[in-house]
């Protein structure tokens, strides 16, 4: 069969090669199929294995502290008392504020890139925003601690304090480490993710709907508000949740700027810690079963949160695109 017509990919023909080839093919086909299937199975197995290992590792801490761990605000390796309360608080506050800034910024960037920017600068600007996502978090953290945090301590935080100091969030004295730089760092890291997806969603909005709005006399903003945003809403929500997932799990850059304190402070100027940054900053020095197991427990909490967030976001994005 394979010798019937010459322009086969391998022109070296001949009866002997053809026979040998058939034998190889009889092995080759199933081999490729089995290997490919195995590889796909690996992808699923890895996820399950991660969940199993992280949960198994937190077993000791779980049996010692139980669910109280989630609300206990203590981290004391000397007395072997551990709890995640303040880290959960730090994680939620830092990520929530980061989303508060990142989501509107990203929507605005996506609008600029799809509706406003002159054609010629669209691609370059989009590329630059995407490149922001490519900068390793440790470098954002380095910049955060050495450039941004001193600026915040000396200029931004005093200014915020003097104007808005009556709000507890901006109370207390400025400090080089704290929630505010962490929020800034997380915002920087979430914006490229959210704006990239939002941009894609905006581009799927049918042009005739936009033109219809214009034909009715809408301004560009009115068109955006009445056509683009309603259609893109599920996509925007999904994108924001994906960005949130990124912010929740970011360890390194946050560790560098947040100050690593076991405390719940109303003030954004004060040091705090998140689940991810606590693991990053403690693991190297951790010793003792309960101590290490408590870090696994933190990882388990983080894993559960990020699984919920990610699965939720994918479902929303998928539904939004299907609709």
């Amino acid at each position: 069969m394979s010798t019937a017509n010459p322009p086969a990919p391998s022109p070296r023909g001949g009866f002997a090669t053809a026979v040998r080839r058939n034998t190889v093919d009889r092995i080759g086909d199933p081999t490729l199929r089995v290997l490919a299937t195995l590889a796909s199975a690996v992808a699923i197995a890895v996820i399950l294995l991660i969940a199993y290992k992280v949960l198994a590792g937190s077993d000791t801490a779980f049996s010692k502290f139980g669910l109280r761990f989630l609300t206990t605000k203590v981290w004391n390796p000397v007395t072997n008392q551990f709890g995640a309360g303040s880290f959960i608080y730090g994680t939620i506050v830092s990520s929530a504020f980061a989303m508060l800034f990142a989501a509107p910024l990203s929507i605005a960037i996506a609008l600029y890139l799809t509706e406003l920017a002159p054609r010629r600068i669209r691609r370059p600007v989009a590329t630059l925003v995407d490149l922001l996502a490519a900068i390793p978090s440790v470098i954002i953290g380095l910049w955060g601690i050495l450039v941004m945090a001193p600026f915040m301590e000396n200029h931004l935080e005093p200014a915020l304090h003097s104007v808005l100091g009556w709000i507890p969030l901006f109370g207390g004295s400025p400090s080089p480490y704290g929630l505010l730089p962490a929020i800034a760092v997380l915002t920087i890291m979430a914006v490229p993710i959210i704006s990239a997806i939002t941009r894609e969603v905006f581009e799927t909005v049918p042009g005739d709907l936009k033109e219809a709005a214009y034909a009715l006399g809408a301004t560009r903003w009115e068109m955006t508000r009445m056509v683009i945003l309603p259609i893109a809403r599920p996509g925007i929500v999904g994108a924001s949740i994906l960005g949130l997932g990124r912010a929740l799990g970011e360890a390194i850059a946050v560790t560098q700027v947040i100050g690593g304190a076991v405390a719940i402070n109303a003030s954004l100027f004060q040091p705090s810690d998140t689940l991810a940054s606590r693991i990053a900053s403690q693991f190297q020095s951790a010793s003792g079963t309960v101590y290490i197991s408590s870090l696994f427990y933190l990882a388990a909490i983080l894993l559960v949160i990020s699984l919920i967030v990610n699965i939720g976001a994918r479902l929303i994005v998928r539904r939004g695109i299907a609709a």
Partner: protein
Amino acid sequence: MSATTGSPGPKLLGASPRRKRVNRTMEVLSSLAAGLAVAVLVIVIGSVLIKGVSALNLDFLTETPAPFGAPGGGIANAIVGTFLLVLIASAIAVPIGLLIGIHASEFARPRTSDAVKFALDILNGVPTIVTGVFIFGLLVAAHVDIFFVHLGGSQSGYAGAVALAIIMLPIVARSAQEVLGLVPGSLREGAVALGIARWRMVLRIVLPTAAGGLITGAVLGVARVAGETAPLLLTSSIASTAVSWNPGQALSSIPVSIFTLSESASPADHARGWAAALVLIIGVLVLSVLARSLHDRSRRRLRG
């Protein structure tokens, strides 16, 4: 997509001044947002460039770290370490990712490949620090023998590389799935009609056609994990300062070095941190830009 006109903009004949003002404000705000994002990028890269260049020289690339307090020294150990870690991680993640792509485009039923895609997306969303904890539990704390390599009891380059491979896998696999899906069915049918076996068709027609996109995925994966710090902190960070080519021991890496230097109180260490960051950022940005241009080119070719 063609509908996103660089819209000449409505003429706003009947719009009241207030509506025009609101419109204008929103336009200005969203332009400012884009400007802000670009400005942050420029400031971050600019800081790294300005502060890194002054501390960067040939010695910095070829020497090992100076003893505590001494001047000079470099990050040769970290450069070698990062090279080895990324090499091993790629050797694991690229073939598996490619096979996952082949599975989706050639063998799997749609439902199966959807499930695999979902698993990969979830894997992509697992915080990298959790991946580090996982590998710590699997290959650092526990003792394992994989073929003739004994792991466990301590950190190792292998453990770090496996952690990086897990982070790289979804990136490589998802792009392979996507790119292989774009290879026209007519090419496959043509090949099969000529009597070629399926596996040959995959290796000689499908993969070469999609080569550009597949390489893009791999390069993006490399760019991503070359800068990863969190998983290495737990799996391959307590390393000697000598240059080591042995992944059986913990290897130093550029990101972990930057992290350690940034946590130091000494300005000399900060200068080293900036220089190391410059080395890393050049590498990562070159890879990202390369991946982007490869991506655009192969897309154009495949879409025709």
